[in-house]
């Protein structure tokens, strides 16, 4: 990031090679459209280039900063492009077909996961499906507690409890990984 802050284009190229797959997966998870995800990925890396001066290593790791930026842009993009209704329809199908939204992304057999990914997924999969779903809707769809309550036909207090318990379990489960992330 220091080299990007020094306006070295090669550094951005290396950053892109290292993280484009992770950021593209995140964007796709939000907007469910390959072409739009590619366009947004390009815009996000351009924003990383333009906003690099605002990154502070004291406040966190580069990946965390990029994920926060990418998630915000993806959720904004979802709403601006008025794809929200279509995504909601797909989301509704996902909920009806498989309440455990993380499970259908990929199976352990389909892909070889890195050690980090394996550990993270193990922690997430260890949550009750209702907690996974609440977190999935909040993080990947940018839904408020009230929107989640309406979407899942669940009392608001229950949604809040599910989010709090689920996030605490993930946070605690990743304690050993946090310094590496």
């Amino acid at each position: 990031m220091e080299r990007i802050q020094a306006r070295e284009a090669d550094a951005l190229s290396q950053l892109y090679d290292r993280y484009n797959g992770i950021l593209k997966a995140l964007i796709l998870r939000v907007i469910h459209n390959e072409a739009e995800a590619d366009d947004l990925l390009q815009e996000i890396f351009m924003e990383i280039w333009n906003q690099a001066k605002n990154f502070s290593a004291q406040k966190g790791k580069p990946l965390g900063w990029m994920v926060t930026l990418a998630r915000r842009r993806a959720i904004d993009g979802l709403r601006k492009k008025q794809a929200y209704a279509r995504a909601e329809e797909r989301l509704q199908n996902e909920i009806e077909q498989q309440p455990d939204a993380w499970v259908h992304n990929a199976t352990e057999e389909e892909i070889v996961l890195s050690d980090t990914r394996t550990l993270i997924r193990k922690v997430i999969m260890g949550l009750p499906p209702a907690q996974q779903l609440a977190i999935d809707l909040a993080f990947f769809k940018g839904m408020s507690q009230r929107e989640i309550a309406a979407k899942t036909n669940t009392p608001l207090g229950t949604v809040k409890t599910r989010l709090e318990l689920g996030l605490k379990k993930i946070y605690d489960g990743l304690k050993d990984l946090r310094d590496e992330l």
Partner: protein
Amino acid sequence: MNFERFQNQSRLYVIGALEPEEVEEFEKARKKFGKKAEDFIAKCYALHEAFALSLRPAKSSDAIKDRLMAMVKAKKEA
């Protein structure tokens, strides 16, 4: 709000899941707990990285990188 409650709220805050009426109380507690609060919130952002890393990386078109680097080059030259 005690610190344990603040920790629970912080995890919701970083993923944008606090309701508007909860944000004001959260910000008051954030000021009250000062550096301890800021340190904890910073740690909570690791959740963002964890959720992203839980996904299988997706392949993007090679043309994206070419376009990106061309835009960067043009911007540097401008």
